C-alpha cells in the first residue's frame, strides 16, 4: 500500500516536471522572442532589450525555467509582459469561475449518467435500453458549444427563462449566480453525461456477467439488490478512470463554453492572452490546466486503492 502510494507520487512529480519542461521548451524555443512579440514589430530595439532585461529573458534558458517553476510553486508567477499586471491574482480569480463551471458540469454529468447507464445495462436487450443507447450515441456527437447554442436558443431566446450569458460571483448575488450558471453547466454536463453513460453501461454490463453476481443471487438477493450491493463497487473502477480522463476534456470544453456564454473564466483568460500575444500568461494557464489534469489522475489512482482491495498489495 505504502509502496504503491510512493510510486504514484513519484509518477505524479515526474509527470509534472516533464510536462512543465515541455511547455516551457515549446514556448521558449519558438521562432521570435516573447518581448518582441509582446511589444509588436514596431517597437524599438532598446524598448525590447529593456523588457527582456526586466523579465529576465536575457538570462540562460535554464535560469528562466527555474525562475518560472519557482513562480508557479510559490503561487507568484510574476507579471504579464503586456499588461504588466500581476498574473497570480488574475489566475486565481479566473480559476474560481472555471472550477464552479466544471464542478457543476461534472456533478450534473454524474447525476444524469450513472442512473441512465445502469438502466441501459439492465435493459440492454429491451427497446427502452436500445433507445437510450442510441440517444447517448447522438449526445456524444454534439459538441458542448453546440449544446450551449441550442440551450441559449431554447431557454434564453425562445422561452426567456434564463439569461443567455454573463457571470456574477456567488457572493455578490447568489440568485443571479445560479441562474447564469445553469445553462453553461448544463451544456458541459449533458455532453459529458452522454459519454459517461456509455462507459457506465459497459462497466455494469461487464459486472452483470460476473460469477460473483450469480453467487449473490444464489444467496437469495434479487437481481437489483445483487447489482447494487455487489456490482456497483466493482463497476466503479473503470468509470472512475474515465471520470478522471474526462476532466481534461471538461476543462477544455469550459474554454469554449466560456466563450459561448461570455464568462470570465480561465478559458477566456487563455483566449484573451493569445489574442494579446501575452505568451507568459498563455504558458501559465496551459501549465495550470495540465497540472489540474495530472493531479486529478493521481487522485483517481488513490481512489482505486480505496475501491479495489486487490490493488492494495504490491502486485500490479
Amino acid at each position, binding site marked *: 500500500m505504502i509502496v504503491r502510494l510512493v510510486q504514484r507520487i513519484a509518477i505524479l512529480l515526474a*509527470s509534472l516536471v516533464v510536462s512543465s519542461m515541455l511547455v516551457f521548451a515549446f*514556448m521558449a524555443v519558438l521562432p521570435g522572442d516573447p518581448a518582441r512579440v509582446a511589444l509588436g514589430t514596431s517597437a524599438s530595439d532598446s524598448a525590447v532589450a529593456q523588457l527582456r532585461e526586466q523579465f529576465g529573458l536575457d538570462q540562460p534558458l535554464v535560469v528562466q525555467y527555474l525562475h518560472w517553476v519557482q513562480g508557479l510553486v510559490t503561487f507568484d508567477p510574476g507579471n504579464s509582459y503586456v499588461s504588466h499586471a500581476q498574473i497570480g491574482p488574475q489566475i486565481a480569480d479566473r480559476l474560481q469561475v472555471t472550477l464552479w463551471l466544471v464542478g457543476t458540469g461534472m456533478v450534473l454529468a454524474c447525476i444524469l449518467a450513472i442512473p441512465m447507464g445502469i438502466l441501459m445495462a439492465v435493459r440492454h436487450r429491451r427497446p427502452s435500453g436500445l433507445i437510450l443507447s442510441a440517444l447517448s450515441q447522438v449526445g456524444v456527437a454534439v459538441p458542448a458549444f*453546440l449544446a450551449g447554442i441550442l440551450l441559449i436558443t431554447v431557454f434564453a431566446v425562445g422561452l426567456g427563462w434564463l439569461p443567455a450569458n454573463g457571470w456574477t460571483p456567488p457572493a455578490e448575488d447568489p440568485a443571479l449566480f445560479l441562474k447564469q450558471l445553469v445553462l453553461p453547466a448544463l451544456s458541459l454536463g449533458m455532453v459529458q453525461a452522454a459519454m459517461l453513460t456509455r462507459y457506465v453501461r459497459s462497466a455494469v*454490463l461487464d459486472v452483470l456477467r460476473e460469477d460473483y453476481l450469480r453467487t449473490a443471487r444464489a444467496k437469495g438477493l434479487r437481481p437489483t439488490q445483487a447489482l447494487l450491493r455487489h456490482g456497483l463497487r466493482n463497476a466503479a473502477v473503470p468509470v472512475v478512470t474515465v471520470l478522471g480522463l474526462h476532466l481534461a476534456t471538461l476543462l477544455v470544453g469550459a474554454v469554449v463554453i466560456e466563450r459561448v456564454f461570455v464568462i470570465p473564466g480561465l478559458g477566456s483568460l487563455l483566449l484573451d492572452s493569445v489574442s494579446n500575444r501575452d505568451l507568459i500568461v498563455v504558458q501559465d494557464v*496551459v501549465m495550470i490546466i495540465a497540472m489540474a489534469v495530472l493531479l486529478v489522475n493521481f487522485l483517481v489512482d488513490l481512489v482505486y486503492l480505496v475501491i479495489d482491495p486487490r490493488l492494495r498489495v504490491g502486485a500490479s
Partner: protein
Amino acid sequence: MSALVTEAAVASEGPDGRRRRRPVTGSLLVGGLIVALVLGMALLSFVWTPHDPTLVNSSARLQEPSLEYWFGTDKFGRDVFSQILMGSRTTLFVGFVAVGVAAVVGVPLGIVAGMGPRWFGELLMRGNDMLLAFPALLLAIMFAAVYGASTLVAMVAIGIASIPNFARLIRGGTLQVMKTEYVIAARAAGRGPFAIGLRHVLPNVSSLVIVQASVGFAIAVLAEAALSFLGFGTPPPTPSWGRMLQESQELLSSDPRLAVFPGVAIAVAVLGFNLLGDGLRDRFDPKLEDHR
C-alpha cells in the same frame, strides 16, 4: 471453462447471436452511409456548388431558404448550402491529416512499447498518460499562440493530441499478439523483432488501427469545429462548419436557422464516424461488443 459456460455459450449462440448481430450491422450501415454522404459532399464541392460559397452579396443578406438558396444566406449574403458543402471538405481534410499524424507516430510507438522490455513499455505509457493532460484543443491553442492560427497548425495539434489513443490501443493489441503461439514459435525460430513486428504484429493490429482511425476522425471533426468556433482553426474566407456556428451566434435571436445547419452537419458527421468505428469494432471482433 466450466460445462455451464460452454452450455450457456452454445445455447445463446443461435437466436441470441442473431439478435446481437443486428445492431452491429445497423451501426456499420448507418455510420458507413453517413461517412459516404460527407465524403460525397466534399467531392461534389470540387466540381459544383450552387453558389460561390465565399461570394459576399449585400443584396441577398439573411435570405430565408428558397429554391435559389436552399439553406438561405448568412449576414454577408453568402449561400449557406454552398458553405456547408465546402465545409465538409475542410472537415475531412483536417480529419485525414490529424488521424494520419496520430497513426504514423502512435502505431509504431504502440508496437515498440508492446514488443520491447516491460519497463520500456511502462515508461512509454507513462509519457503517453502525460500527453493526456494536453487535449487537442489546449495544444492547438498553444500552437496558435506561437505560430498563429492556421489549418495546418490545427491539424498537427489535433494529430499530436490523438497519438496517445493510438499508442495505448496498439500496445494492448501488440501485447496480445506477442502471447500467441505463432509469435512464440517465430521467436523460437530466431526471427528478429523487426521481422516479427512487420510480419505478425502489424497485420494483426491493423483492424485496431482502422477502428481507432474512424473514432479518431470523429474526435478530429469535433476539435476542428471547436477550434474554428474559437477562431483558431481554418481562417476565413475558407468555409468551416465551426466558424459558421460562431458567426451565427450573434444572430441567434433573429436567425437561429444559421446555427442549425452547421450544427447538424457537425453532429451528423461525428455520429457517422463514431457509428462506423463501433460497427467496425464489432465486425472485427464480436466479442468486444459492449466494451469500449
